[in-house]
């Protein structure tokens, strides 16, 4: 089980980082998603992987039985999932908006921040800053 989780985490990390280095914005987005899941699995494994022993303190005891999985890591993952859910929603919207504004999802063509922008498409007046 441990080896399987380790392999899956490694594969997710590799895939995520590889996708983040692609030129296409959508692939970068997929990369972020994979990376997020890889990290969740890492934290999950950090709290030990134990089946069939619930972390419940028996009546009269002051601590859970030995060898239980740490429930706190699972709570941490829950927080991380919620955060990554929000961020993914924003990132999807951002990628879509960027595509509709620029007409491309190739990161190599998104150089407007370094060199002068190509002329805007004429249906949209450029709104620059607060002037």
């Amino acid at each position, binding site marked *: 089980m441990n080896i399987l989780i380790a392999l899956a985490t490694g594969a997710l990390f590799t895939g995520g980082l590889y996708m983040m280095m692609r030129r296409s914005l959508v692939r970068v987005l997929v990369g972020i998603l994979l990376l997020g899941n890889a990290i969740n699995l890492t934290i999950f494994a950090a709290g030990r992987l134990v089946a069939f022993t619930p972390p419940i303190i028996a009546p009269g005891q002051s601590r859970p039985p030995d060898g239980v999985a740490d429930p706190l890591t699972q709570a941490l993952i829950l927080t991380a999932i919620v955060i990554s859910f929000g*961020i993914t929603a924003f990132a999807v919207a*951002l990628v879509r908006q960027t595509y509709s504004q*620029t007409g491309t999802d190739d990161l190599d063509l998104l150089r407007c921040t370094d060199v002068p922008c190509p002329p805007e498409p004429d249906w949209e007046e450029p709104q620059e800053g607060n002037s």
Partner: protein
Amino acid sequence: MNLAVMAPILLPLTSAILALAAWRAPGLQRWAAVAGTFLQFGAALALLNRVNQSGIQTFQVGSWPAPFGITLAVDLFGAIMLAVSGLVGLSVALYALNGIDDERVAYGFYPLFHILLMGVNGAFATGDLFNLYVWFEVMLMASFVLMALGGTRAQLEGSVKYVVLNLLASSLFLSATGLLYGLTGTLNLAQLALVLPETQPHGLTLALSMLYLVAFGIKAAIFPLFFWLPASYHTPPVAVTALFSGLLTKVGAYAMLRVFTLIFRTDPIFTNTLFLVLAGLTMVTGVLGAAAQWDFRRLLSFHIISQIGYLVMGLGLASQAALAGAIYFMVHVILAKTALFLIAGIVERLRGSFDLHQLGGLYRSQPWLALGFALPALALAGLPPFSGFFAKLMLVRAGLEAGQYIIVFTALGVSLLTLFSMSKVWGEVFWKPAAMEPAAVADRGGVPVWMILPTALLVVGGLLLGLFAEPAIQWSHQAAFQLLHPDLYIQAVLGGLP
């Protein structure tokens, strides 16, 4: 119950909720933001006073005792940062009265602004590593939207780069935090400070600390990791850029100072050397990048990077004098940098451009603005008697005491280049004859008083920091003393626990 610690977090949260409730009343949102940030600044000052008088203040959220619940702990360094963040928040709220258009307000500028401040303050106040991650995310999420709000092409492209690289940093931060928990079984900073030096093997701790270095390094924009900053910071309106430049990278630097003085103290020779190398490279690349720029905001953005190098230098020298220098420098650079960005915004308001080639002649028509630019610019370059001089003096002296001559010479050389860069801006924007037709200038009208007031506030604040350097340096030394004695922090958080 110690609500003073919670106030800098609760006040922006309340303001954000009120701003959401007043969604259809932009005017109300604008003034509520001024009132909210004013209260927040006041609360931060009260907290600073309290920390100064009775030591590190803690708050156990939900009254769970220390290592089990979430702890908020504010030492002198944290309190100083909270006060400065309150001042920057107040200035930007005032500036935004005219500096942010109605459309952006209608699409939720103010709720995001408050939430960003809440994230920043939370990061300064927290005493728990996972909680720090959550505050980082709160701050980032608000900054993502603030950066993209407006939806111009440059903004969207800048946001893509900003979002992707910052998400990578957050991912590294989160995985390092998960692994650290697996290694030690705690995420409370005070308990980590107790447990981690004894945790075997040291190599694993070192590897984790390097993960944190990369994660915070991306946020703070240090040497090989800064590329997102000049690609994105010049795209949103100036009020937003000023807020980001004042606070966001500094939160990264704060987090580095915090974790590397409190919990990762196991291999100081290796990490401190690494910090010094990174500091030198950060300073040099930042200032050289700035020298090549002809856009006012991009030039200032590169200077943000260069200045972060000085903070990392203080961390790398790691003596009390050096850390005090870094803390004083942090306050100085936040005030100077935010003021300079606000002035860039006023120049744009007057002349309609950020391009140094097209600007000029402002000294003749706006002598006070020219003076307002010169003071923080000279402070940034480190000329006496301004705040930057004392900050750099402290760092250089600490470097000489430690015998680190290379970084000292780098720091001094970079100061010279900063002076060159600032005099370039001075010459192009204020001194040379106006490049534009006078007719194009005339119809722009005057500068609203609400843009001048916050800028003057920051300029005068920076000036006072230089003129009253003696007490300010003493405070920095006290804060550095607390950083170098983690047992004070541990004692304040964990109390009588072993």
